[in-house]
């Protein structure tokens, strides 16, 4: 590196020397520095001449040059241009990828910018960092890769949209997920409610880069929708040169990890009988638990986990061809993914095609298009009980194995399903009953599938009438056609006794048309101006309809078209919205030293009130490249810092994501009265409903040390979010049909981010480059609506678990405190609101709740006794990415971490519930004798209070800190000398691991969890959620 630099300087010195003589031929090979793979299509020119050639498919070249020392220039998209003074006849060149260099191109919205010119807080992640991870959608692969970005994979259900936050939670009732712009088209993104993530149409292999804009300077161009940050996804384009064919294929397996240890049948029977005895219910003749015997005469000891979880098999293949001529380039890829999840019947199958083409018709006109089609099947038999709203689903696969008795088999000894009425059969148990289904017939027969047909395409036309004017029009569509297909069998479960099928079809159509004109000019050599003016329109329309049919006529059939006797409408949805914007961005820099960016965007949105449709969103940033100042050198700072840029930005952006299409309207809706139609007020209007605003301040600096071998980035930020939309409670006597949506709440996020990248070691055969980031965020709610100081939030509408209180962070845990187990009686000790100990006696009645002195206490209740316990949002998140290279080997290890937060492990309440539910083995430590000190109360049959099932308690709250080895990727590239003979440019074999291990004290399966999806107000809950998977894959990629 150092040597290269010296040579480079030398070249500069000799610039302009033109010693012509006879010609000679220089030959060599161009390879990539990172992977040693040959690079075809590299333009090689002789400096100062018009002589130029392009490297061959195998990276070799041969160029005729005038005799004498000549400077060759090697340039190719995606690589740093390299110049070299050549004296000999042979020159092999290793080009450095520009992915991490300051000249890297950033996507900034309606254009690009070099990283050097950018003054926003933007993190760029190369496609390679995403494609090597075995994930269903690229968002899952972003975890830990950018400072200030929290990506939490909520559960082990395939294709669940992760919780995606940039610089904290920035809304209360609207979405806090960032705006995702794919190739210039703001796209549908997941809501966490279904396992159908619309972003899964993008094959991670096809991604060129993901740029995450966090501050006002980076996001203000998307003004009204930028409050949660903007993520620009750019798919791959062809590069000039011969066609490159690339095949990437892998196979892998996923397994569940860190499941709780449950009682086996023997322990279970003993424990439940003890509980029956303690409750005075045990009767050796009529009421007891007992071991059963299977057909072979063995004791039934059912491991219910084995019926729920499996080894998932993953196949993934991508074929692409890309290339280009001087005027036209193209990229085409096809992908097939078939991924089996760790849950039975949970599969994800994707077939996708992508075609990108760019053509330069002449000096003035260029045009291009993207065509993308994807079919995604999200398959499952039944709810996993893990998505938002499903935590208490009776068929939830996360909970079923925890509550099903291990001494009962899902099958009778004759092989038939073991059921009693519409529940699991009781086996050898007497006088006790189960109230959960036998999951086996449900897994065998039910269906809860969702299929997407997703078309995402755009076309552009660009005119450059003068070199400094670029006018561009771009039209894009994002169409998703979703078919949800559910079947509930008639034999047992939610469909019993009649059977039912529901099929809903929905069309989500989105078009975007934007027109921009950009002026770039440099005056007097040092004053560079750039002005972008634009207009954008986006229109979305959603329509849906479906059929819900019940009472299946013939059990041989199970599809919606079969015979059913009862029909009803289902899935009727209709909505449209329209956003129209005018915007401008002005960039100015003086001598690349002083940089200014100012943006202004005016948006009008159909969903807002008549008086507030319009929003104006300004943003500005300043940058100062201090390292270019003379004093920097004079004080010797240049010896430490090869670059140093101070930057700051301030702006006001907005949020409308998740606000209903008609939220501002006063509505009347139809009903029926004695068979005649009715019409009545159904929604309260608010003509003043408008944008949520986020005022973003960002200050920081970027630096490079040792010729930018080490680069870093420090940012301090504050997002003041105001006008947050809340459904405001008005006096009930006003008789309004609903709580109107009003811009009324406020909240801030502030914090600091630090990123450090290093090209730490680079010797002949070995290199090591780590990248580290850490960010700290503090959130505080400043105001809610009048008369309201806190809003509680519940898990799946069932258990109140969170509180959002003025003066505290959003989504704190709202929990009752406990004081252990009373050694004298084995009773659970709760603390009431005043902190006084209250003992619970599961015998119930008047004596159920007593103070320590034995006097009767009011029953503990959440509304009276729960406290705002602690924060559930991590204070610190980040990652450490390590890339090693040794000869043909490469190794990448990504660690991610989240620190400073607590989780409510609600599942743990169920794991100690003293109904017929199974328990974890720590229940073996239950209290049995006076004086015994333990944290498990005396078991008492049907007790669901002492364990926290009915009252969320702090004994089930745990620190969630974790460090994960999120991904490991180890590859080996065959030596190119070997490959050249067979016309292959590169072959790489690799193995990858995802979620390899986690270091945490959290007792649940995974501290990276969210039972309530992307909910703003009910984070940090792990309630009956299925565990996350560990995936190991192996594959190869070939280029020729």
């Amino acid at each position: 590196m150092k040597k290269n630099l010296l040579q480079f300087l030398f070249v500069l010195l000799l610039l302009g020397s033109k010693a012509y003589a006879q010609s000679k031929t220089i030959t060599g090979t161009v390879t990539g520095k990172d992977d040693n793979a040959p690079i075809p299509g590299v333009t090689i020119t002789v400096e100062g001449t018009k002589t130029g050639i392009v490297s061959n498919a195998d990276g070799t070249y041969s160029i005729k040059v005038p005799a004498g020392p000549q400077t060759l220039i090697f340039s190719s998209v995606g690589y740093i241009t390299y110049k070299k003074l050549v004296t000999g006849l042979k020159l092999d060149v290793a080009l450095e990828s520009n992915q991490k260099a300051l000249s890297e191109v950033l996507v900034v919205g309606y254009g690009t910018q070099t990283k050097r010119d950018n003054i926003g807080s933007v993190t760029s992640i190369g496609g390679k960092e995403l494609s090597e991870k075995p994930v269903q959608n690229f968002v899952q692969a972003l975890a830990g890769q950018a400072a200030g970005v929290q990506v939490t994979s909520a559960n082990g259900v395939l294709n669940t949209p992760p919780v995606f936050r940039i610089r904290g939670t920035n809304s209360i009732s609207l979405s806090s997920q960032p705006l995702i712009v794919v190739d210039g088209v703001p796209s549908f993104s997941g809501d966490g409610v279904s396992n159908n993530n619309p972003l899964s149409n993008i094959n991670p292999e096809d991604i060129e880069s993901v740029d995450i804009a966090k501050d006002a300077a980076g996001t203000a161009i998307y003004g009204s929708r930028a409050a949660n940050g903007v993520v620009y996804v750019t798919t791959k384009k062809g590069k000039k040169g011969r066609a490159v064919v690339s095949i990437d294929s892998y196979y892998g397996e996923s397994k569940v990890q860190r499941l709780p240890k449950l009682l086996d049948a023997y322990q279970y029977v003993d424990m439940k009988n003890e509980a029956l005895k303690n409750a005075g219910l045990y009767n050796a003749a009529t009421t007891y638990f007992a071991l059963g015997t299977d057909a072979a005469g063995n004791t039934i000891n059912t491991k219910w986990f084995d019926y729920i979880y499996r080894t998932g098999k993953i196949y993934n293949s991508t074929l692409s061809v890309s290339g280009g001529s001087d005027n036209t380039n193209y990229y085409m890829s096809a992908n097939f993914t078939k991924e089996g999840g760790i849950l039975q019947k949970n599969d994800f199958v994707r077939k996708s095609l992508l075609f990108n083409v760019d053509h330069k018709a002449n000096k003035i006109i260029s045009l291009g298009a993207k065509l993308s089609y994807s079919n995604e099947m999200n398959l499952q038999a039944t709810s996993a009980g893990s998505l938002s709203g499903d935590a208490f689903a009776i068929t939830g696969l996360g909970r079923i194995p925890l509550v099903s008795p291990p001494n009962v088999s899902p099958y009778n000894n004759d092989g038939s399903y073991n059921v009693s009425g519409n529940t699991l059969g009781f086996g050898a148990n007497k006088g006790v009953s189960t109230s959960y289904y036998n999951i086996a017939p449900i897994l065998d027969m039910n269906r809860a599938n969702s299929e997407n047909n997703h078309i995402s395409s755009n076309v552009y036309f660009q005119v450059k009438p003068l070199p400094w004017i670029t006018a561009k029009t771009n039209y894009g569509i994002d169409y998703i056609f979703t078919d949800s297909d559910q079947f509930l069998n008639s034999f047992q479960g939610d469909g019993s006794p009649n059977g039912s099928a529901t099929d809903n079809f929905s069309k989500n159509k989105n078009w975007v048309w934007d027109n921009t004109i950009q002026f770039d000019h440099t005056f007097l050599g040092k004053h560079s101006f750039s002005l972008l003016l634009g207009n954008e329109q986006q229109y979305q329309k959603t329509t849906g309809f479906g059929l819900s049919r019940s009472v299946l006529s013939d059990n041989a059939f199970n599809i919606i078209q079969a015979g059913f006797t009862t029909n009803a409408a289902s899935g009727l949805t209709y909505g449209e919205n329209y956003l129209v914007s005018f915007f401008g961005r002005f960039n100015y820099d003086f001598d690349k030293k002083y940089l200014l960016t100012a943006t202004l965007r005016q948006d009008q949105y159909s969903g807002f009130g008549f008086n507030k449709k319009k929003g104006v969103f300004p943003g500005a940033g300043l940058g100062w490249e201090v390292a270019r100042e003379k004093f920097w050198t004079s004080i010797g700072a240049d010896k430490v810092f090869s670059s140093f840029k101070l930057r700051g930005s301030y702006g006001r952006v907005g949020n409308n994501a998740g606000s209903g299409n008609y939220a501002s309207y006063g509505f009347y809706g139809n009903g029926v009265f004695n068979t005649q139609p009715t019409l009545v007020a159904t929604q309260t209007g608010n003509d003043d409903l408008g944008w949520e605003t986020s005022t973003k301040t960002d200050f920081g600096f970027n630096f490079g040390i040792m010729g930018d071998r080490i680069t870093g980035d420090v940012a301090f930020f504050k997002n003041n979010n105001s006008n947050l939309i809340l459904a405001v409670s008005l006096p009930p006597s006003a008789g309004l049909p609903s709580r109107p949506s009003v811009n009324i709440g406020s909240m801030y996020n502030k914090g600091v981010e630090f990123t450090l990248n290093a090209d730490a070691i680079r010797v002949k055969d070995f290199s090591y480059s780590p990248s580290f980031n850490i960010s700290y965020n503090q959130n505080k709610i400043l105001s809610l609506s009048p008369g309201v100081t806190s809003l509680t939030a519940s898990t799946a509408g069932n258990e109140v678990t969170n509180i959002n209180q003025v003066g505290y962070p959003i989504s704190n845990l709202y929990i009752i405190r406990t004081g252990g187990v009373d050694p004298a009686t084995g009773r659970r000790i709760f603390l009431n609101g005043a902190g006084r100990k209250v003992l619970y006696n599961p015998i119930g009645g008047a004596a159920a709740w007593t103070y320590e002195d034995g006097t009767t206490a009011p029953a503990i209740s959440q509304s009276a006794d729960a406290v705002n316990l602690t924060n559930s949002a991590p204070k610190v998140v980040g990652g450490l990415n390590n890339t090693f290279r040794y000869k043909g080997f490469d190794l990448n290890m990504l660690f991610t971490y989240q620190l400073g937060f607590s989780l409510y492990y609600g599942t743990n309440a169920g794991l100690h519930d003293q109904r017929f539910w199974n328990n974890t083995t720590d229940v073996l430590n239950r209290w049995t004798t006076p004086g015994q000190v333990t944290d498990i109360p005396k078991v008492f049959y049907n007790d669901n209070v002492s364990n926290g099932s009915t009252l969320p308690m702090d004994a089930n709250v745990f620190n969630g800190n974790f460090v994960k080895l999120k991904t490991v990727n180890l590859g080996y590239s065959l030596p190119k000398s070997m490959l050249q003979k067979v016309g292959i440019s590169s072959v790489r074999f690799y193995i990858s691991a995802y979620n390899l291990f986690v270091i945490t004290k959290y007792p649940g399966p995974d501290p990276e969890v969210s039972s309530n999806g992307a909910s703003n107000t009910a984070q940090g809950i792990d309630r009956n959620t299925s565990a996350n998977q560990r995936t190991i894959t192996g594959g190869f990629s070939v280029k020729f």
Partner: protein
Amino acid sequence: MTMKKTLLIILSLGVVLNYSCQKEKLYPVSQTQVSNQDYQPFTTPARILSQVLALYNNLRGGQLYGSRYIVYNEVKADNYINSSNNGITAFTVWNATIGGTDSQITGLWSSGYSTINNCNLFIDGMVAKGNSVVDAATAKTYVAEAKFIRALVYYDLLQLYARPYADGSGSKPGLPLRLTGNSSYANYDLARSSVADVYAQIIKDLDAAETDLPSTYTTGTPAVLDAVANTTRAHKNTAIALKTRVYLSEQKYSNVITEANKIVPAVAPFVAPTGVPNALQSDITKVFTTPYTTTESILSAPFLTTETPGGQSQLCYYFYANAKALGTAEFNINPTGVVADANWKTTDKRRGFIYTSGSKIAMSKFPTLSPYTDWVPVIRYAEVLLNLAEARVRSTNTVDAQAIALLNAIRGRSDATTVFTVAGFANSTALADAIFQERNIELLGEGFRNADLMRLMLPIPGKGLLGAIPNTDPRYIWPMSGDELLYNKLMTPN
């Protein structure tokens, strides 16, 4: 740049700008709901009629006549014993421990005011727009229906959330009196009017309703009485009948008599001489069976298999069978309540509404199990007769012969063996008591008992292990809705 090029660019810019904003898309028209902008719900006769029907639909909602208003007024008094201990199905109403933030207190309050607001919105909208869409006569009757429903709901709310009129002649805090429609975000703080003021408004609305309501609803050609409409929609007699109830609550007995005389002849047979020929049926059980449209039912809330009361909001569920086992209900009959009355003979047809199975006693006046399609009576002609009878006795303080005739009409149709005579009563108080008890028997399970006790400032008798609640006790009336106190800065607690 050549002229041509410049022109081209300017032209294309012009085209782009021309299509740069599609204004109409900023103002989308919902295809599933009617916006209230520019009184759109009042633009067609069909929409207006649909709104009128929606008001009745409000009235039959679960919190009001779907069941809960009736259930609360029954179980707050003395004829029932709670069996379910379920805090959301009136257990705490029954044992008088309910708090103001309880969903039962806040739910009925909200539901009542939602109905009132819909009436207000309708009345306002008719003035602003609807009167120009439907003919004047139709407009008048529609508005009269809205006023009738508004009056009824204000009356209902007074019975639970305010002190009786008798306490200080209506001088106690009543309800926030809202007479204009609310449809958007605004400041809605409003103080309570006095009980007397609210009653005055109720009477004002009912007087107007009486004037403008149709005498009858008819159907077909030649027109015949439309029994369904005459049972499910208000007509003149409905307004008059309700006035007898309202004036009785105010102890304005002479007014009760004046109103009742409009629809009750001086002597039997008791058939309304004008309007719908409302009359006492010879067999009370016919009133409570399909088709539920006898002329005794002056107003009822209809239910069908496709239009059922909400979950835990069915009278049958509360009083008869909350599961398939008959008699297993949220509330069973208090054996020491009205059923203990020895003068209520076992042969009395109304004893047929008392279901006994072992030690379980339940009320089977509303016997239809799921989907619970019993129609719920709001006003029955029998009540009007009892209102009149009681008013006559209490206003004249005599053993009034007409009152006895009315009493006999009620008793006699179910129990021909019992005949009251003037001689049978020692004084007017004894007669008043007999009428009051007859009311208790006749209207059992129809939501009168609590209001009847309170209008006379009588204590709520004890039941089970619970003691009596005197009229000085704060538990005598319900606490004010906690939500109202929280969000209405001018609201005051009970």
